[in-house]
């Protein structure tokens, strides 16, 4: 649906200069025609370019983001993101249980919920420190060092949570 709707739009080249995507200029001629004929632009394209305009539908934008993520994100960062999603799910379940079934015993709720929150924070830190895109900012912290810190922090967190839940 989204792709067909894009075909009826006016000449996209008219608004192209305002587009922030700098990679679009790499294949200016292919843009109007490929969008009408092929539905999987990202898989066929050799670059990470997705042809978007200011009038692109939100689904197209989301799809483009997803494609770019799939393409550009390192394997380990993806693994971190999966783990982060898992932690959010577990934390949300515990919080919903607390709301539905009551907070007794409260220390157990605190321990269980804090385990997910704390682990999320530590993992997010690991993601920031090991992301190649942030290398400039963390030049003094190697990914190995970051991972060692992460393991140490996590073990400490688990120790405290298990103790706190009694």
């Amino acid at each position, binding site marked *: 649906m989204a792709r067909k709707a894009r075909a009826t739009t006016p000449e996209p080249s008219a608004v192209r200069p305002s587009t922030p995507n700098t990679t679009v200029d790499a294949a200016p001629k292919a843009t109007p025609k490929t969008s009408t004929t092929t539905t999987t632009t990202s898989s066929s394209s050799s670059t990470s370019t997705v042809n978007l305009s200011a009038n692109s539908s939100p689904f197209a934008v989301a799809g483009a983001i997803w494609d770019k993520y799939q393409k550009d994100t390192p394997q380990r960062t993806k693994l*971190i993101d999966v783990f982060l999603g898992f932690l959010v799910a577990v934390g949300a379940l515990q919080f919903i249980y607390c709301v539905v079934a009551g907070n007794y015993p409260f220390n*157990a709720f605190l321990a269980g919920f804090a385990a997910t929150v704390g682990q999320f924070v530590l993992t997010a830190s690991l993601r920031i420190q090991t992301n190649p895109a942030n290398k400039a900012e963390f030049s003094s912290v190697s990914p190995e060092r970051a991972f060692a810190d992460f393991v140490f922090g996590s073990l400490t967190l688990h120790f405290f949570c298990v103790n706190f*839940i009694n």
Partner: protein
Amino acid sequence: MGLTLRSVLTALISLVSLSQGISLTGPRTLLVLEDDVKAQFQTLISDLEARGFTTTTHTPKSTTLTLFQHEERVYDNIIIFPTKLKGLGPNLPSSSFLKHATAGGNILILLPSSQDDNVPTAIAELATQVDIFLPPKGFAVVNHFDLADQIEPDHNTLLVDLPSFPSDTKNYFNTGEDKAAKLLYRGAGLALGSSPLVQPILKAPRFAYSYDTKEASSFADDENVFSAGKQLALVASVQTRNNARITFVGGADLLADQSFTKVAKTNQMSGNRAFAKDVTAWTFKETGVLRVDGIEHWGEEFGKGVVNGDVYRIKHDVTFSIALSEYSYDHFEPFVAPADDAVQLEFTMLDPYYRIPLSASSSPLTQHKNSTTYSTTFKTPDQHGVFTFAVNYKRPFLSNVHEKRAVTVRHFAHNEWTRSWGISGSWPWIAGIWVVVVGWIGFVGLWLWSKPIVAEGKAKKKQ
């Protein structure tokens, strides 16, 4: 320790008295009476002596009479008989009676039966001080509806039923054989104040009233009626806070020989003699005296292994028991609380957290001879601090029981809380922690396994 000492003393005293009845206060009794009055009370005095009282007689004006020697009571009990004198003499001011009562002595005061006789000033003062009010001279109680003797013109002699009390009060004043006997009474009566220490023993019949015989010989109206009906007490008593007893008898004839006769109307013997025994026995502490034989408390933590310990824990079962016995003439016997009354335990920290009835225990921890063990088991409140087991049993005609035992109630020790897995509500959160831990281990494993290729290439270059 005090209990054992007291029981040894009691045993000694009862040995000395050779199984005669004996007052708990002591046998030394002072009779304040004039010689011409003594003849009217021969039976009362001889009955007292037969029960083990040693009597000393003094006239009110006696100069050798003294109630205290070396600041010790000389007499245990005092009976003041009616006198024609306006005052009792220099050795018997009203303060001396209060001092006697403060020192634990008992006093029985017989007010004159004849409206023409004076009440000594010291006696009137004493009565006012203990919240009992006497009518002025010239007052008499009459009852025109229930005549003791048809030929008596003034209707001044009353027929009064023996005392009866509500079912939550013990009756020590109707112990004679004939429960339906009538009492013959002649006198002015008493009005009682609102002091909780004052108790009426004998009340006037419903239609009786006390009126001024001088002012209203033909009829009585509001102005010259002192009191009437059940509001009018004939015999009343004060038990002081130290359990001394001061009894006022509104008309001395109640205990006089002339009343220990047949009642003309019913042709039955009057109940006066038995009533005289009951009143003197109660006033002089031969009856109605409670003794605490032992207090024991123990808790769930140590069971009966630690009795009367200092520390209990919150939310633990605690058992408290108190052994009570009651004196009856010459021996202590198990105290049985009246049917509608209960001995209560208070568990107090500033305020009572619990006030619960104690029930007679069938299997007390320690068997006390001749006493009833009242006990109860309760759970300590969820509040730590210094608590007091208190039994505050103060009832009409019984000596006061006010026992306190302070104990510490501690909170949970850190290892006494329920573990998390003992509470099913915490299982999801326990699971949450372990899911995170397992997930984390899996993540670490995957992380190490998925080492980036770029890094490998760089490492090779370096080597």
